[in-house]
């Protein structure tokens, strides 16, 4: 019984991670950069929900506002900070991304202060069935993220824009020659990733209502780890990695002996998987050319 509860909890946590990991992995696949600031977009989304909810009290409106704001912010960051560096060394782009992450965190702190804000998104209560006590929010999270991920997969597979994304991730130069506007595709990717981050922020606030300027930091790093475990650049890989991460976390949190070491266990799994398969579980191996 306890095991099933843990698994459902893990799946819900994992689907949140998967949503964040999708943002990392899509941006990596298309722009070939690690967007370190992605975790902080979640935090910005959280604050947007807070602001809208304290004005209107409607969580759905809050979510919408967060999605819109995060999309604008994500695209703006891409235009200002990452676009000038296209073609520069990956290290330079990575360091800029770290800088953007810091910038977002400190800006949020200046505006909202260090004290954590309480955002009671919705109290959905528990669902008691057959001796199980399942918090409803886990089911909502799980359901919503499954729908979002399915839509995303269909979008990438069957629409023109989605196929253009695949083409850009395979070969940027060739895609450009085929008439694909690479800059536009990269912009759309950042927009989708940021929208997913806003959703993830909403789910995280449903789970625990306290909001600080480092809300996105640790989940960001973990989702990033999940994306790398699944094989960065691969969309099913990010989902798999995210779910795996969430389940491992939920299981290890229920065992008292290893619970304090949960973070360490997740990172050790990352190191082991990378040592066995350097490109992650579903990652493609690229041959390097001189």
């Amino acid at each position, binding site marked *: 019984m306890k095991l099933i509860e843990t698994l459902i909890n893990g799946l819900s946590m994992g689907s949140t991670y998967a949503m964040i990991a999708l943002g990392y992995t899509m941006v990596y696949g298309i722009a070939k950069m690690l967007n370190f600031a992605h975790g902080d977009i979640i935090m910005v989304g959280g604050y947007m929900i807070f602001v809208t909810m304290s004005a209107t009290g409607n969580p759905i409106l809050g979510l919408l506002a967060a999605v819109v704001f995060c999309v604008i912010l994500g695209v703006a960051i891409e235009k200002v900070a990452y676009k000038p560096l296209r073609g520069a060394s990956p290290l330079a782009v990575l360091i800029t991304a770290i800088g953007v992450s810091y910038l977002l*965190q400190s800006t949020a702190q200046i505006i909202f202060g260090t004290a954590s804000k309480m955002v009671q998104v919705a109290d959905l209560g528990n669902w008691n069935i057959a001796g199980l006590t399942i918090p409803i929010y886990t089911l909502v999270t799980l359901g919503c993220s499954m729908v979002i991920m399915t839509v995303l997969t269909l979008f990438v597979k069957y629409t023109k824009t989605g196929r253009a994304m695949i083409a850009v991730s395979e070969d940027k130069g060739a895609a450009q020659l085929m008439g694909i506007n690479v800059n536009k595709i990269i912009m759309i990717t950042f927009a989708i990733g940021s929208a997913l981050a806003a959703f993830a922020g909403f789910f995280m606030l449903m789970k625990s209502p306290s909001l600080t300027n480092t809300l996105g930091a640790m989940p960001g790093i973990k989702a990033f780890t999940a994306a790398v475990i699944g094989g960065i650049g691969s969309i099913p890989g990010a989902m798999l990695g995210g779910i795996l991460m969430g389940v491992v976390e939920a299981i290890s949190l229920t065992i008292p002996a290893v619970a304090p070491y949960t973070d360490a266990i997740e990172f050790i799994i990352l190191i082991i998987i990378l040592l066995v398969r350097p490109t992650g579980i579903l990652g493609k191996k690229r041959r390097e050319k001189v």
Partner: protein
Amino acid sequence: MAGLKNIKWKKYVSYVVLAAATVILAVLSFAGALKSSDIYLLEKVAISIMLAVSLSMVVGFLGELSLGHAGFMCIGAYLGGKTAVLLEPVLGEFPTLFVALILGGIIAAVFGIVIGLPALRLRGDYLAIVTLAFGEIVRSVFMNSSDESFGGSLGLDTPRFDKEYLFIIALVLVLGCLVVTQNLIHSKHGRAITSIRDNEIAAKATGINVTKYKLIVFCVSSFFAGVAGVLYSYSNYTVQSANFDYNYSIEILVMVVLGGMGSINGSIIAAALITFLDVKLQTILTGNLAVLQDLFYALILILLVIYNNAPALRGFREKYNISKLFARFKKHNPATVKDDEAKWDRVPTKIKMDEVLSVDVQVTSPYTPDKSPKEEK
């Protein structure tokens, strides 16, 4: 005088400046002119310089991004602190410090090799995430250790080295660190390391043992991070794992980037400057204003990286770089430029004059050695 000109002054200027600073500060402190807050600041500056120089080896010279440098420092700090607690009653102050420095450095270096091993299979972004994970693992293990072993979440109480001259020891250690890194970088091995940075496959093809050099760099870099950690534990009363988080690794990285990738002198200046500003601004900016400092760092980091790396700004950079601006102020007198006075009779050569003269020269087709195609037109 000719000998002096040939010395690469850039290599030695850091030694001279640091040694002079150490001597002056030592004299000042024995004369009692330094406040205890100044001494604390100097200790922090020395620790930061050591961290920045050691990270600069990995990031600036080997070209791999390490986001777990604070993890190595954390190992050094905890082990150094624990050694101090255990051995100080037995050995006394100085031998304990010595043992702690060696032990902290070596254990950190061992972990450096352990982290260097995945570095052989992974590169770039993947390695960055592994080092980040390593830092978090180290922190989490120390955070959850039992109270008797490493103090757990409360941190480990360490006996602060109560002598005021800890900063002199720290500065001397920084000099030692500089000697090792500069000599490594300016040697044959250093050139091999930078060639791995520039093109790993090409380096491999020219017969450079990439495995060996990557491990050497990780080992040396983490050794000095460990030593810096030991100094940290001696400089503070407690060692708390929460201080060695990912943000601290980033702060060290900011120092390296600010100083200029692949420039040790730059790292030293940036580390000293940032630490100085950190400590000074802490007293000025309090409460929510303190975050302005982070904002400032973030902006500097972004602007600097974009300015230095953006392909669109290449022309601008070449036109207005600092060394060219300075070159304008230098007097350039063509009359003073002399030809290289080579003495050809002293140049050793394997060709004997007799052999050259004995070649049959045909009169009908005069041999013109340096006839370029342009002249034929």
